């Protein structure tokens, strides 16, 4: 159920000489909320596309939800187990009606016609779009589009959900909507993998992976990874504002007890000093 175990995953695209992934290890337990952080081009999207065998494993070992991704007989079960939402909300719809689009995945797995409408409306309700079946995706806001795309994935009841930079093109409101939906799913026991370069989005995660140039350079809890500016800078990312302030205050001779991750924690730490 919902676990991921990968060892020494290495991958190179045909047009590139340097490998995009270079000996990556990853291990995720069922039900965890996981953030994979890294700048553009670090290989994070390439990595997750191995989880549902969109990319064929070239070297290394990878088993997802107990399925070996090399096992071609299990390909379709694997794809049903791992749902994926992508970056561009406009490029995920197959139909001009939200309801038909959410049904797309179900039809691919030959779910009987009679069961489809129920599953579609349940999935739409889960993302807060109940009753949107007859709407056109083009007339929705960015956040609504991404939630409709999410519904299309959730209708298949995946054990693992991958959000491949699903918030990158949204405005702050849309971004919050998608993050809230991700939290909600994790509460229901789904393993959620978030790919992002926004460090703040990784704060609520159970586990953070940090990637750079095709390598996994750190793995741990947010407290372990996000509080080390050197590590984040090595990956081309900036630490969250409270962490930055914590370290700058220390340089100025003011030592806080704990390194805070959120603004609230920061405020509390500072008050304790006063």
């Amino acid at each position, binding site marked *: 159920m919902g676990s991921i175990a990968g060892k020494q995953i290495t991958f190179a695209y045909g047009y590139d000489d340097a490998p995009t992934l270079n000996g990556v290890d990853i291990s995720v337990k069922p039900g965890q909320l996981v953030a994979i952080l890294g700048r*553009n081009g670090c290989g994070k999207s390439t990595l997750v596309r191995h989880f549902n065998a969109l990319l064929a494993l070239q070297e290394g070992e990878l088993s997802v939800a107990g399925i070996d991704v090399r096992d071609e007989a299990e390909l379709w079960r694997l794809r049903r187990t791992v749902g994926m939402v992508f970056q561009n909300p406009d490029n995920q719809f197959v139909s001009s009606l939200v309801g038909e689009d959410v049904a797309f995945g179900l039809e691919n797995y030959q779910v009987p016609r009679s069961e489809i409408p129920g599953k579609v409306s349940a999935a739409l309700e889960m993302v807060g779009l109940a009753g949107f079946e007859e709407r056109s995706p083009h007339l929705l806001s960015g956040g609504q589009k991404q939630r409709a795309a999410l519904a299309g994935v959730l209708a298949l009841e995946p054990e693992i959900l991958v959000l491949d930079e699903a918030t990158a093109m949204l*405005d702050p*409101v849309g971004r919050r909507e998608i993050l809230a939906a991700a939290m909600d799913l994790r509460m229901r026991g789904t393993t959620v993998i978030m790919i992002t370069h926004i460090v703040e989005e990784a704060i609520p995660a159970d586990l953070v992976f940090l990637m750079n140039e095709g390598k996994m350079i750190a793995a741990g809890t947010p407290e372990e990874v996000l509080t080390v500016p050197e590590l984040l800078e090595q990956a081309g990312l900036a630490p969250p504002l409270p962490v*930055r302030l914590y370290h*700058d205050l220390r340089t100025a001779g003011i030592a806080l007890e704990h390194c805070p991750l959120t*603004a*609230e924690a920061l*405020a*509390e730490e500072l008050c304790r000093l006063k």
Partner: protein
Amino acid sequence: MSFEIKSLSYVYQRGTPLETPALENVSFSIGDGEFVGIMGHTGCGKSTLLHLMAGLLPAPAGTVLIDGEDINRKGYDRSVLRRKLGVLFQFPESQLFESTVEKDVAFGLKHSGLSTKDIEQRVQWAIETVGLDYSRVKGQSPLGLSGGEKRRAAIAGVLAVQPRHLILDEPTVGLDPMGREALLELLVKLNRDGMTILMVSHDADSLGEAARRLLVLHQGHLAADGPIGQVFADMDAMADWGLGVSQSREAAGLLARKGLEVPQDITSYRQLLPAVLTALKGGGSP
């Protein structure tokens, strides 16, 4: 004045059942060399405003003056406007089309009347200004560059005409932190060298770092106009308009609520750090 906008109004799909006002009676002016941010909830009319200000939509009601000239006046030479006003749209990398970066960056200079040598110099200047290696990329296809490099190449294409004013629409979307940082540095530098910059964005952090003045559009009206610190100071109003403020401003608000004496017109980390230090050292002299 770079821009003078006088009682500008615009209606979508005029005369149809879908008629909706996009802008209503908007007036403001922007001086030479200002760095102005524009924020507004999706659908507030800011992209219409941007198109009107860039002369890409005719203004049916109201006037747009650029450097004192009415750009919708009959007989106004639009090619002059194109040379003094650069516009960078969202995802500008989708405009790239030439076979080499050099040709693509030179596209806007085609009708400029400059000599081949001058064009070459301008192109080199633009490519180097955005931080790309001129000798490496000039002969490459822009389509084969990485995502971040494509964005830079597209920006170089806008800068090559050396516009006096630059309008940007969501320039930071899709960039990673380093790309964003580099872009903001570039904009601040161009602004310091005298370019008027007008940046439409949802990215309150970037605006907080770079812009000095902020306009807020709400449902087609100009809801706020002032120094960005002042506009961000009223977080409740910002929330009412469906907008967030920069993280530094938010942190300052939280700290103040906990009793720390931090000024509330902070917009960037650059201002936050000394303010916190001052507050911790007992609120004495800075």
